């Protein structure tokens, strides 16, 4: 809880720092504050979790683990933001503040114990993101991304709310435990149709939020239009949080009626996988490719919810961690390449292997991880997902997933091929210290998790 308070107070502090022109203090203060928040979270680890604030929140291990990883990723991303926002406009403090506000929303999202909190968390996060997507005021793509993201987000919120309302009407409470007990006591015969409709609408709303097909169409545009750093934030931290919320809701409340919503979710998963992968094949822009691949990763993450079990939390956690870290590397390199070559096509990566071996190496690690090659974190994530699904004897789904994994090789390797095997005369670019730290750290995390996943595998 202190974490949440700290993360909510920090941005206000930043705003006032910005007012009093303490520009250089912003980033350090943010990082230190977040580290403190991280410490507070982890300190809670061994305390027994009770629903607090009249059952509004519950900081169980699930919540702590996900808060920790989201905060960590945010720190990594913010370290990339050195001199990034200054190039956009002068309201730097505001940007940091807004990112932190959305982080606060995310912490609520992963630790809610009441649908009210779910809604509030999602909204705090989304509203901040609407702004962040459009911070490039004069860049038309950015405006458009902001508007699309906003309209779609509000739209999906409507569905989510209607779902919550119907569930409330059926069960008479927003409390997760009450809803679970209600679902347990009502068999599919006696259950209220409102309840099922509510679940369906919530699935729609949440799928919008996590960008799962067929509600994904806003994702690529928004990811492409937004400033790259913000895209990194969206596609890592936000996605992680979205799935954490998704999983928390379904594993807590709706597990007993899974035979009802399972087929729908399966269809969505398959659709997400295929659409994400196949469209990613045809992209010429690395950024847009990442956007589509993030859709397909959403598909893999949905596996954990489809194959709901005791290990689902772990699977999502590991997969999300691996995915986030790898994506952070990818976006960090993308930012640098964009600064040098101006565009984000695959061609602009040509010859990176010669000019910046380190950069090329970490990006290779990231791509291998995203593609799920062993000895990287991505493989462990996929392994967990698949084994969960196979354990539920949904082998045909796994086979489809495997085929998609094979497809994904094509576009992930495109950048590797470009970096190493296609030569272009390019000057070595200077990498800021912050970037080096982030890249090295992320790569190390990726490989460590890939080689010895036990460090985080049995957290939840």
């Amino acid at each position, binding site marked *: 809880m202190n974490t949440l308070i700290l993360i909510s107070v920090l941005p*206000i502090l930043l*705003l*006032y720092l910005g*007012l009093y022109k303490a520009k250089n203090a912003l980033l350090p203060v943010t990082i230190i504050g977040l580290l403190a928040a991280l410490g507070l979270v982890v300190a809670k680890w061994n305390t027994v979790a009770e629903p607090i604030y009249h059952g509004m929140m519950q900081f169980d291990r699930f919540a702590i683990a996900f808060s920790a990883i989201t905060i960590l990723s945010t720190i990594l991303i913010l370290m990339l933001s050195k001199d990034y926002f200054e190039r956009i406009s002068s309201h730097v403090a505001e940007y940091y503040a807004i990112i932190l506000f959305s982080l606060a929303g995310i912490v609520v999202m992963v630790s809610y114990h009441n649908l009210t909190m779910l809604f509030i968390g999602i909204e705090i996060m989304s509203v901040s993101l609407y702004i962040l997507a459009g911070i490039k005021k004069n860049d038309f793509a950015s405006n458009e991304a902001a508007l699309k993201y906003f309209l779609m987000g509000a739209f999906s919120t409507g569905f989510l709310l209607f779902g919550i309302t119907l569930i409330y009407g059926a069960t008479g409470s927003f409390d997760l435990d009450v809803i679970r007990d209600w679902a347990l006591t009502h068999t599919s015969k006696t259950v209220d149709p409102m309840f099922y409709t509510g679940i369906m609408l919530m699935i729609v709303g949440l799928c919008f939020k996590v960008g799962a097909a067929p509600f994904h169409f806003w994702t690529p545009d928004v990811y492409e239009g937004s400033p790259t750093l913000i895209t990194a934030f969206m596609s890592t931290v936000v996605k992680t949080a979205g799935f954490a919320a998704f999983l928390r809701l379904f594993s807590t409340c709706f597990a007993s009626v899974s035979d009802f919503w399972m087929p729908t979710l399966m269809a969505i998963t398959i659709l997400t996988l295929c659409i994400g992968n196949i469209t990613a094949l045809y992209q010429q822009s690395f950024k847009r490719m990442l956007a589509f691949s993030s859709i397909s990763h959403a598909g893999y993450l949905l596996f954990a919810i489809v194959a709901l079990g005791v290990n689902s939390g772990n699977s999502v956690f590991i997969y999300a961690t691996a995915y986030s870290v790898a994506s952070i590397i990818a976006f960090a390199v993308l930012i640098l390449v964009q600064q040098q070559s101006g565009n984000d096509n695959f061609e602009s990566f040509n010859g990176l292997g010669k000019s910046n071996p380190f950069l090329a190496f970490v990006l290779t690690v990231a791509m291998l991880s995203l593609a799920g090659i062993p000895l990287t974190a991505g493989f462990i994530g996929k392994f967990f997902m698949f084994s969960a699904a196979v354990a539920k004897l949904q082998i045909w789904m796994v086979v489809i997933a495997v085929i998609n994994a094979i497809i994904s090789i094509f576009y992930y390797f495109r950048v590797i091929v470009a970096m190493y095997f296609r030569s272009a005369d390019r000057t070595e670019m200077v990498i800021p210290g912050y970037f080096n730290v982030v890249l090295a750290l992320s790569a190390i995390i990726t490989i460590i998790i890939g080689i010895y996943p036990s460090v985080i595998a049995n957290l939840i």
Partner: protein
Amino acid sequence: MEAQSSAINYLPIVIQMLVAVGFAVGTMFATHYLGPKRKTKDKLTPFESGVEVVGNARTPISIKYFLVAILFVLFDVEVIFMYPWAVNFREMGVEGLVEMFIFMATLLLGFIYILKKKALDWD
């Protein structure tokens, strides 16, 4: 709080609305038929103190008004939260007071922020 007032209590309001509507519409029609009709072109042009009409009136206006509107929306909604508290203020006691003060402090922080940002200066 006090007893819920059911839908029936709102019936008179409906009646009053009907009366009001009736009055307005009736009067409109009355004046429409009573008044003389001698329309000339000049009468029907927008009045700009007798000068020739320049451009369209539907032009974008100062962003300040828009800013005020947004701030109003935000603050007014925050005020909504205070009503239930104010009404049940005595039941909630000191705890409620403290919590609401924290709430208002946050509100004030935001308020001071926009003041410092000169969002409300008209010049």
